[in-house]
C-alpha cells in the first residue's frame, strides 16, 4: 500500500470513526435506548411467569426519577406517580393483557435546556385480552426527560390530541 492510499484511507476512516464515536455517546442515542428499555419492561409474552412479571416491574425503576406525570386521558392514565407507585402498579396494569407489544418510533428530540429533553414519538400498543379481543392503539406522545445522576429519566408523558370532537 503506497503512501497516497494510506492518506486516503485515513481521510475516510478517521471522520467515520469520530462520527460513530459521537453517535454512540450522543444524548439522542441514549434517550432512544431508554425508550427501548421502557418498551422491553412493558412488553409481555403469553404465559408469563410471576417471577418474570416482578423482574419486568423492577426494570422500570431506573427509568423514572422521583415522580412522573401521565396525561393519556383516552386510556385513563392520568396523574402524577412516584417511582415506587409506578413499579407497584405496573404489574396490575400488565395483568389485564395476556400479551403486550409496545414499540416507539419516529423520534423527534429537542433540548430546551441543559439536562432536559422533549421527545415527540409514535407509540404503538398492541395488547391481547383473550376473549375480550385485541387493543391496537397508535398515539403521538410528547415525553419529557431529565438528566439525573442515574442517567436520563422520564418525567412526563402527554398524549397529543390530534382530533377535537
Amino acid at each position, binding site marked *: 500500500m503506497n503512501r497516497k492510499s494510506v492518506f486516503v484511507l485515513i481521510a475516510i476512516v478517521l471522520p467515520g470513526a469520530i462520527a460513530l464515536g459521537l453517535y454512540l455517546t450522543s444524548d439522542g442515542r441514549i434517550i432512544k435506548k431508554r425508550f427501548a428499555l421502557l418498551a422491553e419492561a412493558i412488553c409481555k409474552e403469553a404465559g408469563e411467569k410471576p417471577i418474570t412479571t416482578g423482574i419486568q416491574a423492577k426494570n422500570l425503576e431506573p427509568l423514572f426519577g422521583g415522580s412522573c406525570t401521565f396525561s393519556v386521558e383516552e386510556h385513563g392514565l392520568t396523574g402524577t406517580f412516584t417511582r415506587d407507585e409506578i413499579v407497584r402498579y405496573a404489574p396490575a396494569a400488565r395483568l389485564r393483557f395476556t400479551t403486550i407489544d409496545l414499540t416507539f418510533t*419516529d423520534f423527534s428530540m429537542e433540548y430546551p435546556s441543559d439536562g432536559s429533553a422533549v421527545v415527540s414519538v*409514535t407509540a404503538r400498543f398492541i395488547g391481547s385480552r383473550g376473549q375480550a379481543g385485541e387493543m391496537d392503539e397508535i*398515539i403521538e406522545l410528547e415525553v419529557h426527560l431529565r438528566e439525573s445522576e442515574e442517567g436520563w429519566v422520564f418525567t412526563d408523558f402527554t398524549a397529543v390530541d*390530534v382530533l377535537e*370532537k
Partner: protein
Amino acid sequence: MTSPAEEPASPHSRLRAFLFPRLTHAYLLRVAAVAVASYLLFGHLCIPLKIDGQSMEPAYRDGSWTFCWRPAYAFRDPEHHDVVAVRLSGRRIVLLKRVVATEGETVSFVDGILFVNGRPVEEPYVRTPCDWNLAPRIVQTGNVYVVGDNRGMAMEAHDFGQVTRERVVGAPLW
C-alpha cells in the same frame, strides 16, 4: 473480422445482460438516479398508504392500498367533501377522513344528519344508517372539521373532529 460487440446477441445472452448487467459507470449512475427518484417520489411526494380500519368505508376498504399525494394542498386549502390525509403521529401514521366544515363554520349532528351552519348537508358517500347526536361547535381558525364516511360505527369509537390545517398532509390519489 467481426468484433464480439458486433455479434448478434442471442435471447439467452440478452436475458443474462438484463439480469446481470456489467457494472459500468453509466449503469451505476442510472441505478443511483432511480434510487434517488424513488426515494423522493415514494418517500416524500406520493407515499404508499395501507388502509387499516373501517372508518372510511365504503370509499376505502379495510386492508386496501392507496397513495398520499403530499402536494395536494400546497397551494390551496381543503374544501368541503375532500378526502384528506391527517397526520396522526410521526411522518407515517395518517388518518383518511372527509372534510365536512372549514374554519368559522358550526358543525353538529342531529339523529345522524350532519348540519353545517344550521343547515342539513347531503352526504351521498355515507351509506350506513347513523344515529349520532353532537351539540353544535364552531371550527376554530386554522382548523378543518373531518369525519369518516362510516357512520355505522358508534360515535365514541369513531375518530373525528377538528384538526389543525398543518396536520392535513395531503390527499389520497384515488
